């Protein structure tokens, strides 16, 4: 009991700190995240800037705080969209069965077989540097996991007597989803969401690694990691800071979700 409480408390602290940074950071930190000073590039931490400067002499702390807004909302938006799509489709597939189920299943298989990265790469080629192709591509690649989980759990839950009883009482699908399916799905969905969040921010980073990232000079955690990568031995703290924040967010969400699962 208490260990579960500790886990949740740590999780809430991690997520809370990141969200606070995102909300208050840009407000409290005076430095302009876009302001360059090439003569003060890669300054070490604890000088004028708490976390030092990046390769263009920009304040890493200010960039982290502004990036938190984008990254947190980006990760949350992609993971939430994927969750919504996957859960919705999974529920419909499980409830309707038959041809709907088969079509949704085939769609899921095909999406899984189609490398997610390819989807993002192609979408990103439509609008280089823009935000929406990354979001769309990542959400489209992520929904599959939610779908598979929801369909499997919902299928077995729908066989349960409680659902049969609800049907006998004349309840519709919506009621059954709300009362009998969602309560069983939420913990696992929460864990998946945490991972989806991490995966989407890491994916942005991977994409900018292969040259398909967000438009500079937008500060974003994933982008920052890639940008600072060449300076790993001169500015390790600056490189690790965004990675650390992403880690804290993922770990925090995972602990909050209460159940760590696939």
């Amino acid at each position, binding site marked *: 009991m208490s*260990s579960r409480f500790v886990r949740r408390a740590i999780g809430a602290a991690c997520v809370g700190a990141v969200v606070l940074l995102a909300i208050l950071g840009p407000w409290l930190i005076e430095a302009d995240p876009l302001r360059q000073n090439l003569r003060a590039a890669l300054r070490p931490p604890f000088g004028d800037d708490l976390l030092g400067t990046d390769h263009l002499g920009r304040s890493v702390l200010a960039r982290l705080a502004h990036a938190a807004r984008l990254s947190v909302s980006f990760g949350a938006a992609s993971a939430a969209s994927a969750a919504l799509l996957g859960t919705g489709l999974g529920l419909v597939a499980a409830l309707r069965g038959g041809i709907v189920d088969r079509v949704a299943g*085939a769609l899921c*298989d*095909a999406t*899984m*077989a*189609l*490398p*997610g*990265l*390819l989807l993002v*790469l*192609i*979408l990103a*080629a*439509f609008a280089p540097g823009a935000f929406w192709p990354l979001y769309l591509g990542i959400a489209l*690649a992520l929904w*599959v*996991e939610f779908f*598979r989980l929801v369909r499997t759990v919902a299928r077995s839950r729908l066989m349960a007597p409680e659902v049969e009883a609800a049907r006998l009482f004349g309840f519709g699908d919506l009621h059954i989803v709300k009362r009998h399916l969602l309560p069983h799905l939420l913990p696992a969905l929460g864990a998946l969401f945490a*991972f989806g969040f*991490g*995966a989407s*921010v*890491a*994916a942005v*980073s*991977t994409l900018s*690694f*292969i*040259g398909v990232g967000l438009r500079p000079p937008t500060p974003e955690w*994933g982008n920052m*990691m*890639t940008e600072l*990568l060449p300076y*790993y*031995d001169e500015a390790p703290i600056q490189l690790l800071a965004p*990675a650390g924040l*992403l*880690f804290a*967010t*993922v*770990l925090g969400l*995972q602990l909050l979700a209460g*159940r*760590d*699962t*696939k």
Partner: protein
Amino acid sequence: MGGVGRALADRLLQALFVALLVGVLCFFLAEALPGDQAFRIAAARYGEDMVSGIAADAVRAELGLDRPAWLRLADWLLNIARIDLGVSLVSGESVFEELVHQLGSTIGLSLAALALSALVGPPLGVFFALRAGKLPDAIGTAAAAALRALPSFAVGIALMLVFASWLAVVPAAGYDQPQSWLLPTTTLALGLAATSSIVSRQATLAVLQSSQIAFARTKGLGEFDVVRRHAVRNAAAPVVAYLGVQLVYLVEGVVVVESLFAWPGIGHALVHAVIARDIPMLQGTALAMGLLFVLLNAAVDFACRAIDPRVRHA
């Protein structure tokens, strides 16, 4: 054995569907891309210094890029039936032959990584489950989250720095020595092991709380035998089933790891194909990845059947 035949037929059908979908989707997406295809191909072929309007016009004429799109798609679909994936627009080589060459490297790397992750992840997961709530478990959970949150290139660079630059015990990149396998394989495997350890931990915990395990204990088996003979096998089913999902991550990892470690594989080819809009190559790589996925998933299916008699007899 009718079950096996049916499962095979199902997978075959899925493969066909995937092939069709991937081919058509790639084609339309690539077709709809903004910009001039001829220029991209010329850039990829001759390098930035030599791309010019003249080179692009020559490319356009040579590849028939001015033909209607549907005609080119129909060509591709007809040819696929003859296992002819066309010719790479960039290198001018047969896509099929390039794939055969690159697919080997990628499959080798993927299998090695899967094997290594299977060696590390599930045993760790079982270990964490046996110590659930204790310090090693907490560390393991955090480490897994860290590995999931860190993009794989960061992990790769870190390994490269430590083992190649500082300790100089392994080659940093390349593929000509047996040791060359270590870094790319380990990088990929760490990411995979992170997830599979979590899945295994979860599955093992669930099994350990089951009445089968309680009975195995009360019938007199020692804890080691209980875990070895009952917990592991029962936890294996969901873990193996999860492999199917994990393969998706493998693809992403392969793309990064191959470009980081100069590994001549299909992930590498895929990125180049997208950037150059080399549609036949794009269709070919995506198709190969899709079919590989279907194949590996079929393998996972059969592994599940082998492990669980209930699936076998269903």
